[in-house]
């Protein structure tokens, strides 16, 4: 079992005070403080939708990206109703159902560790950090299904440059938001939360590595990792951490959630690789959502030209 140090908790881990207070006020006002959590959530949803559901922001004037694929995009409905976000439940349809009231207002991302300028970013600051681009990427899940998504964001390297990593910064550790009160289904996921992920510094600096704030022309819906997430298209989907609250630059390779859960099945690198199978299933093929039969999976999910050089000389069977 992983025992986390208390110092790992940052302000960003704490439920925004407004959510907490609103909830208390609301329950007291309704006089149903003793009601079951289920009923409470239903009432909450009916009575105060405007407070909790942030309307999607439309982005305009998005720059096109040379990294975009011309493949057929999956529908918005597919991408928002079939995905994994274990904090909201383990069924593919759970995230859409259970993240409706997820409060993402007053969001901050804390950047710390081996950097000259550690700081916190608000969402407004992040949105102004670099010009937003639309990047249409293939996204390959470790479960052997795939989608094509028009993400919105910019290269993560833009943020890295702003905080000036020291020479000691060899790896980047990422952490998701976790609040058991907003994500009660998380306790059944069978993995430890908050969800953590990591990249090697060169991977983080690769222009393909996307700091993502939207998709399909608007801000990220809750179930797909609102309000900000990573997208690393040559790695299995679980590397692309959602609802990001903390970025830490460090010398040591950081722990990653699925590797902690099953080290023989999920490695730190987790590059899409059709010739290295998951111990329990083949990775040679994948089902593109919307298709019946499976298609061949491409090495590095088809992004070899941009990323293969980072792994030259490395045994990718060993470093799965």
């Amino acid at each position, binding site marked *: 079992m992983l025992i986390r140090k208390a110092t790992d908790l940052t302000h960003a881990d704490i439920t925004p005070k407004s959510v907490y207070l609103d909830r208390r006020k609301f329950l007291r006002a309704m006089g149903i403080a003793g009601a079951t959590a289920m009923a409470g959530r239903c009432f909450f949803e009916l009575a105060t939708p405007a407070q909790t559901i942030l309307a999607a922001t439309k982005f305009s004037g998005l720059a096109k990206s040379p990294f975009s694929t011309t493949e057929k995009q999956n529908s918005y409905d597919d991408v928002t109703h079939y995905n994994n976000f274990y904090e909201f439940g383990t069924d593919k349809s759970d995230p859409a159902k259970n993240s409706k009231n997820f409060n993402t207002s007053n969001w901050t991302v804390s950047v710390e560790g081996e950097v000259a300028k550690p700081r916190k970013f608000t969402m407004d600051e992040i949105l102004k950090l670099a010009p937003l681009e639309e990047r249409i990427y293939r996204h390959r899940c470790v479960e052997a299904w795939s989608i094509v998504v028009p993400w919105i964001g910019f290269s993560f390297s833009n943020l890295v440059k702003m905080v000036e990593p020291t020479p000691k910064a060899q790896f980047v550790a990422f952490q998701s938001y976790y609040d058991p009160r907003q994500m009660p289904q998380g306790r059944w996921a069978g993995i430890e939360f908050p969800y953590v992920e990591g990249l090697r510094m060169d991977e983080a600096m690769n222009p393909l590595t996307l700091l993502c704030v939207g998709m399909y022309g608007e801000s990220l819906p809750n179930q797909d990792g609102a309000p900000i997430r990573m997208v690393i298209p040559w790695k299995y989907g679980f590397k692309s951490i959602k609802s990001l609250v903390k970025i830490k630059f460090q010398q040591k390779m950081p722990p990653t959630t699925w590797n902690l859960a099953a080290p023989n099945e999920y490695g730190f690198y987790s590059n899409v690789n059709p010739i290295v199978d998951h111990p*329990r299933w*083949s990775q040679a093929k994948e089902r593109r959502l919307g298709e019946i*039969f499976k298609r061949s999976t491409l090495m590095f999910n088809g992004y070899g030209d941009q990323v293969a050089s980072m792994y030259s000389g490395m045994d990718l069977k060993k470093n799965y």
Partner: protein
Amino acid sequence: MSWYSRVRALLTSKWTKVVLFLVCLIPLGGLTWRALHHGLGANPVEFIQLATGRWTLRFLVFTLCITPFRKLLNLPDLIRFRRMLGLFAFFYVCLHFLTYLGPDQSFDLGGMWKDVAKRPFITVGFLGFLLLVPLAITSTAGWIRRLGGRRWRILHRAIYFAAIAGVIHFYWKVKSDVRSPLFYGALVAILLLWRLGDWFSRRRSVIAAKLSPEGARVDTAR
């Protein structure tokens, strides 16, 4: 009429079998309805695969329930439905297998064998499926006669291993949330342990019956 005789009358009615047959088709009907109304989600193949897999396990559990319920509730007529439930388990496992052979393996038998041999979770699932094939074939009255009741019963104990294989297959398939496989595992465990307990108590009573005259003699001799 007492409650008990009313239930027995219901169980012996020829209509009950017809109704049960239709009820057993509801999962298939549900999938068909969803297929026609875009209700299978973004990954219809997976939806059908998971649903037919779950229904196979459920029907195996229903089939395994018949004997304990017959004895515990003193309702011998329940036996009339056992074959149908078992055959429906086989029906749903066939659909489950077809989603694997077709969409997953593109009907490539060579590729399928390689996959079956290589992956424990597929191997154990496939074994469970194979175990059910002879049971479905020999489910007719003719086959019971040909094999003889005793041999037929021994053969049909293969369902125990098929159910265990099904649960292991499910358990090995999930990534981390094992609640559902454990639930079916617990049901199968209870149903099989009941049989073990029943077998022991019958054995004991047989032994006791054999021993009792002798025991009595020993007693009087002393």
